[in-house]
């Protein structure tokens, strides 16, 4: 159980206002876990707990315990933790550099200087994100000139450059068309061999297509967690059933 994430009674608040309450969850390794729930229920906040980002923000409070491969993340260096747990944000935020420099930004930070090695990494990770063919001729182009879907895939590829064990994705397809979404979905299914993936999504059908486990969050509480098959065929909780039937939208 090398790179599982385990949450024990995790609660979080912004300026004293509780946003997550008593969440206990075990995210299995080498699979895709989807987090679903209505807008504002705390999905993004939960992701930011998992990579220690929330702790660093002003006015936030966190309690409970989060273990990465059995190790308490509170006791890890924040940089070390984030190298192991990558996060891709809801809206793509490429750095205002060229595609190539976006990809080498973190590698340089970790001391990779060799041009050949950098080239190899850039190519490998762009290929994994299904972007290489589209941009291989223009790696020097500004990342801001890519389309929204390309930017999102670039951000995923960029997150992969540091070789994380866990990859957290916050609604990576929310701004994309069907085709770009399905490219990303296919990519994620391939990536789960190597990484543990947690994806927040508003798209129930997408969760059903790609995930192995589903966590349903409602009002800051974890209502139900189970395998995708179980959640979709026989949800135990009434709230889950209502949500899946589209009552909360």
């Amino acid at each position: 159980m090398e790179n599982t994430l385990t949450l024990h009674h995790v609660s979080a608040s912004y300026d004293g206002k509780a946003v997550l309450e008593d969440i206990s969850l075990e995210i299995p390794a080498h699979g895709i876990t989807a987090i679903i729930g209505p807008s504002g229920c705390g999905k993004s906040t939960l992701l930011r707990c998992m990579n220690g980002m929330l702790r660093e923000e002003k006015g936030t409070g966190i309690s409970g315990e989060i273990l990465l491969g059995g190790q308490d993340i509170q006791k890890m260096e924040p940089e070390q933790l984030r190298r192991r747990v990558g996060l891709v944000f809801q809206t793509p935020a490429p750095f205002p550099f060229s595609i190539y420099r976006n990809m080498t930004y973190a590698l340089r930070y970790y001391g990779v200087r060799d041009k050949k090695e950098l080239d190899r990494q850039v190519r490998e990770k762009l290929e994994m994100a299904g972007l290489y063919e589209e941009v291989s001729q223009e790696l020097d182009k500004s990342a801001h000139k890519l389309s929204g879907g390309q930017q999102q895939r670039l951000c995923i590829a960029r997150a992969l450059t540091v070789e994380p064990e866990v990859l957290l994705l916050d609604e990576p397809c929310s701004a994309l068309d069907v085709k770009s979404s399905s490219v990303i979905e296919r990519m994620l299914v391939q990536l789960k061999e190597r990484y543990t993936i947690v994806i927040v999504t508003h798209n129930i059908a997408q969760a059903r297509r790609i995930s192995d486990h589903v966590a349903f969050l409602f009002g800051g509480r974890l209502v139900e967690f189970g395998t995708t098959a179980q959640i979709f065929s026989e949800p135990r909780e009434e709230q889950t059933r209502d949500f899946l039937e589209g009552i909360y939208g």
Partner: protein
Amino acid sequence: MHWKARLVKYWAYLSMGLVTAIILFLFGYVFYQGADTISWEFLTQAPSGAVLGEEGGIWPAIVGSLFFTATAVVLGSIPAVATALYMVFYCKSRRLELLVRMVVQCISGIPSIVLGLFAYSFLVRDLGWGRCILSSGVALAIMILPFIEVRAEKAFHELPAQMVQSSYALGCSRWYTIRKIVLPACKGELVSGIILGGCYAMGATAPMIFTGAVAYAKVPTSLMQPAMALPMHLYLLLAQGVTSMDTAYATAFVMMGLILLSNLLATIYARRSQKKWRIH
């Protein structure tokens, strides 16, 4: 359009026109009055005459002002930018943030003559630095610190938060993020804020009257000497009365020209670096 909305629109146009007219008139007037006296000699010679400044030029004052300004900019902008970085990227406590903000606001509320008094009694007298550019520079630096800090903080806040957080999310340290993303992205605004702060320092008289600016001195060669300064010189010329009115206007002309030029450069620089950053 609704008549109220129309009224507000006309009012806005009118005030804009009025303000522009006043500013143009002010500059035009000073430039017109001073233009006759301006000459190559005026710019490059030391003042002379029975009453100082009635004849000769203002070269030592120009150089002196640049010295005062440069000292103030160096001493003021470093802590100002550092404070802004701390406030935006390091400080995790709301209370501490509030406290620092209050302190900065208090500093900006100190009358500049009080800064002069402080620099005089503490630096010139107690520490024995004597009247010199450095003593004035410290007073001026304190004066422009909040000015620069506020602008720097605003620039940092306006960066897209997710861009900065993306860097953290890759496990990169704050310092690396600041060096590689934040500072390059804000360079234009930082430099222009610092130049504007320098203009502010260049025009101030009160902090240097007792601490380093003197009626007459040679072109300075070190920071431990007193020096002439344009606003101080202007003040003295005015105080002397009618006979030195022409040189007073010419001095004002040079001062405003310098400040206008710096402002222009600051704006152009900010524009250009912003554009460059966006496209690349």
